[in-house]
């Protein structure tokens, strides 16, 4: 482990949180037993409870300062082409505009304002064949990985072009073929062990997850990944809230990164509003995860959830408008990257405005088209529960057909492809 880091953590010399070393036997002399449960632990005669305040808080990695310049003027600029940076900006902007339009036009959305850099930046650092499992606030991952506006809008209105076959509520995308991302569920953290399993199966995986790490799945998954050397990156978006519950009521201890250490997993904390920091951290995490046959890495991306949890939430009930405003106008991923682009002569106000308008227009156009599309054929009601329809399902299908024929005025079958024949 890096000496600097060790010192900054306040670790004494003999504390070496090495990767778990497995011993097939533990030898012991009469004086020095080596317990299999903690093979590197020296025996001492002073009782010294380790407390969470023994260790300094894990520092947060950043590349840019708030003005959009390199925070450390002595380092190399990020290894990102100008074109790439512009694409990232456009993708983050698209996510932001998608959220707004879905909120306005559809009263839908698990909006992700304030967190666009984490999803776009981390997805950008992953390989095209890497598999991703994520939560429902990760539109940026899909955007960065090739989801089109048509895909997004079709899912929103559950039309026949939705890759998820119109089965899930808005922003719960399915796009494995295009993006390598598993279909999204509403349940929290259940996807974390999936990433571990996929990593175990073969290559590089990445997993996205918000601040919720309180569910049992998180702990089980980290433990599994560590003991089985799975090449998986655990990405945690710590945006400060879980609906109304602030992080102070969600956990004690030093955030999420510190938990990784407890499981023997290398961990890093990053400014999640700084897309270059996000990109570099993910890239490095990927490199490490593939080392020596594979191992898990944990990254905690810090951010602030500017928006309400969803359209059913009024977050002014549990936090002040002033607090939200200061994050919205002061320190957010879009304005930060924009300042960088302007400082480097790659963008200006006019260009920004035009891009915004163009994206908005394109999204609305796709929405209009999607809304006019039919829904999928009615056989989608029963398909895909099993690989083949069960006997019971076949009987129920006929029952539903009979009901729909007996009461034709009660059902709008023509809104589905093929009408009743599509069942």
């Amino acid at each position, binding site marked *: 482990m890096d000496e600097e880091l060790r010192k900054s953590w306040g670790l004494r010399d003999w504390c070496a949180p090495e990767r778990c070393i497995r011993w097939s036997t533990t030898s012991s002399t009469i004086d020095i037993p080596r317990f299999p449960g903690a093979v590197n632990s020296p025996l001492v005669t002073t009782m010294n409870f380790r407390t969470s305040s023994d260790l300094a808080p894990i520092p947060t990695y950043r590349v840019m300062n708030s003005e959009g310049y390199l925070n450390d003027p002595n380092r190399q600029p990020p290894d990102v082409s100008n074109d790439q940076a512009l694409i990232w900006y456009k993708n983050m902007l698209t996510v932001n505009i998608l959220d707004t339009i879905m909120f306005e036009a559809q009263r839908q959305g698990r909006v992700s304002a304030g967190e666009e850099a984490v999803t776009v930046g981390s997805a950008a650092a992953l390989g095209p064949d890497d598999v991703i499992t994520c939560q429902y606030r990760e539109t940026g991952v899909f955007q960065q990985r090739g989801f089109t506006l048509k895909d997004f809008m079709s899912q929103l209105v559950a039309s026949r072009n939705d890759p998820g076959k119109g*089965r899930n509520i808005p922003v719960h995308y399915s796009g494995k073929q295009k993006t390598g991302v598993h279909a999204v*569920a509403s349940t929290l953290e259940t996807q974390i062990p999936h990433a571990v399993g996929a990593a175990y199966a073969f290559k590089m995986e990445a997993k996205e997850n918000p601040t919720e790490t*309180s*569910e049992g799945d998180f702990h089980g998954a980290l433990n599994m990944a560590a003991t089985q050397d799975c090449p998986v990156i655990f990405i945690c978006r710590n945006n400060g809230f*879980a609906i109304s519950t602030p992080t102070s009521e969600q956990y004690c201890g030093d955030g999420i990164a510190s938990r990784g250490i407890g499981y023997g997993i290398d961990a890093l904390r990053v400014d999640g509003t700084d897309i270059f920091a996000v990109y570099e951290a993910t890239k490095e995490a990927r490199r490490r995860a593939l080392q020596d046959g594979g191992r898990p890495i944990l990254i905690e991306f810090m951010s602030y959830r500017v928006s309400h949890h969803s359209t059913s939430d009024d977050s002014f009930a549990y936090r002040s408008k002033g607090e939200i405003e200061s994050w919205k106008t002061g320190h957010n991923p879009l304005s930060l990257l924009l300042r960088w682009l302007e400082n480097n002569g790659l963008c200006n106000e006019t260009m920004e405005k035009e891009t915004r308008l163009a994206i908005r227009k394109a999204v609305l156009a796709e929405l209009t088209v999607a809304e006019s599309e039919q829904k999928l054929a009615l056989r989608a009601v029963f398909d895909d529960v099993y690989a083949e329809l069960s006997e019971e399902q076949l009987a*129920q299908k006929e029952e539903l057909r009979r009901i729909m024929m007996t009461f034709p*005025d009660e059902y709008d079958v023509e809104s589905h492809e093929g009408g009743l024949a599509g069942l």
Partner: protein
Amino acid sequence: MFSLQAMARRTKLNEPIDFSTTPLFHHNKKTFTKTLGLSTDGRSKRMNLFQSVNNALGITLRTSNEVLCFGEDVAFGGVFRCTMNLQAEFGKDRVFNTPLTEQGIIGTAIGAAAKGMKPVVEIRFADYVFPAFDQIVNEASKFRYREGATGGNVGGLVIRMPPGGVGHGALYHSQSPESLFCHVPGFKVVSPRSPSQAKGMLLSAILHSPDPVIFLEPKILYRAAIEQVPEASYTLPLDKAEVVKSGTDLTIISYGRPLYTCSAAIEAAERDFNGASIELIDLQAIYPWDRKRMVNFGVGAEIAATIQDALFLQLNAPVKRVAGWTTHTGLAYQKYIIPDVARVYDAIQGSLEY
């Protein structure tokens, strides 16, 4: 024989339920006399379901210092407003937020109940109860049994959760997992149909039930169901079904939100099938259910089997079940999957014609 010629049905069957006129509510306190346990003495107030639950929780917290109320986001009032103002009145020690961990919530509640507390915990959506399944099935359900002679139990535990479809909840906001809990004895699994039922049943569950309770509040009724509710404290039984509409030719058994679908179908059927008289029973106690009443009055999955065992020769038609299809509640298809008025109406017709 009923006149079942193809009636020119002028009214559509699958209309949205009009809760302001449904006969299942007490729109006026005069009708309290129809329901055992509701008294016309004392004041009553119009409340929706979340208000009546909130009212009941406040009464229990006031009545007994052993009552605790915790779960995700309960401090600011809960996503469905059932816990509004409770932390302000009773303090953080008794009403508090937990981290996101259903397993942790139920496990902790079991421990507290074993020590004599009365933890009333909230699972935000019934769809999210599954991480707690092990604690419910392997711990809470078996607690009294495995304690044996010590008498140790978790009777003070009440788990509240909202099941059921709302039209757009799709896969993870529409489920009805109660049947899973009915196959492992140890809990009382109950579901009120209305605000007045909810208040009385919740007060029973928290203050008087010697057994742990799973309390299912049909989420679509939180705002939609509004009726007169007595302001005083009162209790309703957790082991009795209730005949909410009498009838002589056919019985329908249901509970929760589907009761209203059945009520609408019955109204249409009695209008269209001249002379038909159809009874509607609210199960209320889903498990253990009111066997005496079912055997005496009605026909009805598990219920159907028991009934045919006792009443085989007295049945005029096979027991028919109307339920969700064997699939998941995909967003675009929910309305075809969850039983609607047309399906219940069709089942009524089929049974009467048998």
